[in-house]
């Protein structure tokens, strides 16, 4: 690619450190060097393989194969004790001009006691079909905290497949937030491994799909150590002939005592043709646990619609209010106020059928890393 790119994200007042990708490719354009002083390392995985080999080894990360296969990707390392105040935003702008598909391998290492927020966006900027596959491995050292946001908003001719794993040491805190709005075929695989005591993971997802869209969420939480807590909350609204699958796997190992693992998947089907398959799958090899799972598939509450209409609210607005309310508890898990505001707006527009992609996400030339719009 001839030009280096820098992403302009249209979310008002959202100041982020942007990590730019174009059709899945990451090119270290030198914008990120200044961040090193602040304890944030951003490199391509190839560079990381060369310069951070001992750190990779320490975390048992094997990259040789990926490098050999010519896979591209981003390496993010937040050093011990570093609290990153601005969220990091990795934006993959998909044009389908450079290629029709991409596979990327990405690594995030959170040092001891570090904290960060990472927003990953995939956005198509035209109607070209594209296949995006990405694998992200996140290593969370003890006492680290991460909020991870994944925004999937690509055209319906395109597909996206994510394979994300989190490995968590002692006292680590993780919140994930998966938003699937547009995209023909969306497949998300999420694995969380507790590899230390007293850690917590809150895994949240929202999928709003219509027409012929298909979205799969496969979530597995491995409670391999005691005293850990996990919450899964996935919600979806399906219109037209859309289809969703949810597989929620909770594994509690024999000695993982005082485990708390909760799971909930709620769906609203707006038509007879929309389809949801939801499957809780709990494997528990310990008595000292608190586990729950619940799955619902339903329609909008007719009594509530009638009640609202009796107050003069049109059926269209009443349905909007109810759908938005349904999404609200997932949305409330996000701690980035500016992002929330934009998300609320995006979700309202999506429910109204007005949002086809994140159309204001455009790219421009690199203007240095401190350019935060």
């Amino acid at each position, binding site marked *: 690619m001839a030009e280096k790119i820098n992403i302009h994200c249209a979310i008002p007042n959202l100041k982020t450190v942007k990590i730019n990708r174009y059709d899945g490719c990451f090119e270290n354009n030198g914008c990120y060097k200044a961040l090193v002083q602040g304890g944030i390392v951003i490199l391509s995985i190839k560079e990381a393989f060369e310069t951070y080999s001992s750190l990779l080894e320490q975390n048992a990360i094997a990259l040789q194969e990926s490098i050999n296969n010519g896979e591209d990707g981003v390496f993010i390392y937040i050093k011990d004790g570093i609290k990153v105040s601005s969220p990091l935003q990795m934006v993959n702008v998909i044009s389908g001009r450079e290629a029709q598909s991409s596979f990327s391998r990405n690594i995030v290492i959170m040092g001891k006691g570090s904290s960060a927020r990472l927003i990953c966006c995939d956005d198509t900027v035209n109607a070209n079909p594209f296949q995006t596959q990405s694998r992200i491995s996140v290593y969370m050292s003890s006492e680290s905290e991460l909020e991870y946001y994944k925004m999937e908003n690509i055209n319906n001719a395109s597909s996206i497949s994510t394979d994300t794993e989190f490995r968590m040491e002692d006292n680590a805190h993780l919140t994930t937030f998966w938003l699937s709005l547009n995209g023909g075929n969306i497949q998300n695989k999420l694995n969380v491994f507790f590899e230390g005591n007293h850690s917590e993971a809150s895994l949240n997802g929202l999928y709003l799909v219509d027409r012929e869209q298909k979205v799969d969420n496969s979530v597995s939480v491995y409670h391999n150590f005691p005293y850990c807590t996990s919450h899964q909350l996935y919600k979806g609204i399906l219109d037209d002939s859309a289809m969703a699958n949810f597989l929620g796997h909770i594994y509690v190992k024999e000695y993982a005592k005082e485990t708390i693992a909760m799971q909930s998947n709620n769906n609203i089907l707006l038509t007879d043709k929309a389809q949801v398959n939801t499957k809780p799958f709990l494997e528990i090899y310990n008595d000292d646990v608190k586990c729950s799972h619940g799955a619902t598939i339903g329609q909008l*509450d007719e*009594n*509530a619609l*009638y*009640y*609202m*209409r*009796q*107050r*003069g*609210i*049109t*059926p269209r*607005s009443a349905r909007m*209010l*109810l759908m*938005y*309310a*349904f999404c*609200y*508890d997932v949305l409330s898990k996000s701690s980035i106020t500016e992002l929330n505001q934009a998300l609320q707006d995006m979700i309202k527009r999506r429910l109204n059928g007005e949002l086809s992609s994140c159309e204001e996400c455009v790219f421009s030339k690199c203007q240095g890393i401190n350019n935060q719009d």
Partner: protein
Amino acid sequence: MALLEIKNLYASIKGKEILKGVNLTINKGEVHAIMGPNGNGKSTLASVIAGNEAFTVEKGEILLNGKDLLSMPVEARAAEGVFIGFQYPVEIPGVSISNFIRTAVNEQRKYRGLDPIGAKEFIDRMNYAKQVVELTSSLVNRSVNEGFSGGEKKKMEIFQMAMLRPTLSILDETDSGLDIDALRIVASGVNQLQNKETSTVLITHYQRLLDYIVPDFVHVLYEGKIVKTGDKNLAKELEEKGYEWLRK
């Protein structure tokens, strides 16, 4: 002038006939009470006036200010001024009361060709409506009716009535499940909102509510028809004698 005219109304649900020829005229400024044993059509009458699609109108007419209500959907009837105080208000988790009521006010205004309500006017009206039923501020920040006690739900209905300023309010067993203090507050709210231009219909089983809200007329709805109409003393008579003596 007649606000509401119901003429020879027949209505059924799932093939079962409930209303069998109701005639009722309500003038502006009047308070009417409709009494009668359970299962004789009181709540059905409220639902049919509101436009609940679960009921089928077989025959008859309902006019509000001379306009044919039966040809309008639920939300249009509401915007024309019909308000139902529900016996069992619905909980709507995730929808805040202020958002809900603002949407309702504005959609009714839109129906009438008015611009959305101004921010200050809305706040003033909220404050007034809260004071009408002695609501605490914290309650209106919550989701609609979610986790409310029986009394709070009924106060919330009257709060909405104060916000929406309907011309015809039909309060369906607003007194059920209320303790004596809540009953006094709800009744006082209704009295404050009643004026020369509005009419209130109280559907109730008990004389007790009518001690607080004094009706101009009391009707007995029995086996799908209004079989007797009187003044407030009829309610006292019913309290003493029950409904048996009205059987022919």
